[in-house]
């Protein structure tokens, strides 16, 4: 589903990603962990071209993003993204947040879009919040609406950029539950998160990114149970 080859990204003189290789198969869930500033978010944002790589290649579902003939808007329709700060549209209700892209990008009829929107809000357990504005619902609810919004374009791949980091502890569970259900439904997911419980339970693979390179990767049982590298051991000892 996703193939990243020798990805480099610099911001001015700051070399953030230093040759990333990543392969995510259809239906797999990859959790990326790593210290702050290691480039996790940048990597994720390169996968839907919110950041343009300095060099290297990225392919999503067989489409090469760096190819000038590629319509990036088309690619992004198939790649949902969930942000740490939710980024819900504050002037639109929960339902309107979900239906905006189907209405304007896909040209869906209002009735059809509303049905889709309600189906997705129900899926994240927020059907009754359809007419509430973002400033009227809790952080956990906002993030669930944001997930529904991303799902509205029927993506093949979902990117989660620290989806629970801005949440109060008691709201983290509800968001992780939605993400877990999504994984069970077979969604391909790349998740940047420090929720180790989620990683253990849901991830097919856990990867440690440090200083712009992957240090170690493996299935959660191995990754957490028998980490090979000292860097991984040191990092895990700090967060577990």
């Amino acid at each position, binding site marked *: 589903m996703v193939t990243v080859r020798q990805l480099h990204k610099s911001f001015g003189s700051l070399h953030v990603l230093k040759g990333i290789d990543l392969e995510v198969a259809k239906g797999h869930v990859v959790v990326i962990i790593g210290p702050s500033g290691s480039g996790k978010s940048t990597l994720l944002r390169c996968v*839907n071209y*919110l950041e343009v790589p300095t060099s290297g290649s990225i392919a999503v579902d067989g489409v090469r993003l760096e190819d000038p003939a590629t319509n990036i*808007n*088309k*690619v*992004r*329709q*198939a*790649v*949902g*993204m969930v*942000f740490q*700060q939710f*980024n*819900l*549209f*504050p*002037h639109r209700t929960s339902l309107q947040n979900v239906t*905006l*892209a189907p209405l*304007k*990008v896909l040209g869906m009829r209002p009735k059809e879009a509303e049905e889709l929107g309600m189906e997705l809000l129900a899926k994240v357990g927020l059907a009754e919040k359809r007419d509430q*504005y*973002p*400033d009227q619902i809790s952080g956990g609810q906002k993030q669930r609406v*944001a997930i529904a*919004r*991303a799902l*509205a*374009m029927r993506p093949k791949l979902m990117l989660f950029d620290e989806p629970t980091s801005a949440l109060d502890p008691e709201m983290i569970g509800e968001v992780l539950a939605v993400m877990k259900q999504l994984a069970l439904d077979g969604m391909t997911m790349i998740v940047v998160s420090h929720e180790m419980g989620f990683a253990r339970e849901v991830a097919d693979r856990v990867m440690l990114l440090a200083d712009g390179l992957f240090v170690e990767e493996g299935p959660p049982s191995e990754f957490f149970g028998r980490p090979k590298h000292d860097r991984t051991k040191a990092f895990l000892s700090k967060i577990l």
Partner: protein
Amino acid sequence: MTYNLEIVAKYLPFLLLGVGVTFRFTVMGFFLGSFLGLSLALGRISKNPVLRLPCLWYIDFIRGTPLLAQVYLIHFGLPQVFGYRPVGSVDALVALTLNCAAYVAEIWRGGIESIERGQMEAARSLGMTYGLSMRFVILPQAFRRVIPPMGNEFIALLKESSLVSVIGLEDLMMKANMMAGRSFRPFEAYFTVALIYLALTLTFARLVGRLEGRLSSGHG
């Protein structure tokens, strides 16, 4: 020092004829200038220098030169070069529109740039184009934020429109000039006209304040 109310009462209906002209030109200039200004703002924030630079130059030129100079340029200067026949009312409207647009452009730019970056990113991540994202996500939010400065711009334009009297438009200011000339009472003429402008600006300031209050209780 006396303020002769009889003189004022005699000329007040005459002065008030000018209010209509002033009001019409201000509203039309503001309306047209708002659309042109939004276009200029979108050009000004474009990454494409072919769009951005002309908009930037235009805005800088208008904001960096006096309105009076712009009025003279349009009414007396450019006809010499382009050979069109100067028409006071048209030139006045053009001058007010072009002037207003530059200030409105900066207001819109400020409003657009005040919207968090994440809003554009969220819209783009859904596959929306830049244009769709602007139209349905960024501009509606920016609109609420530009209302107070737009109100101020309207009031500023109302006052500045007095300058178009120099090319013969019979606006409020011109009426005051005429009253001063006919009555030989310049104090009554200019003090009364100042009070009328004050009444107009205060009225609009309150209207804008109310609109602002209503919008801030809404969402976004």
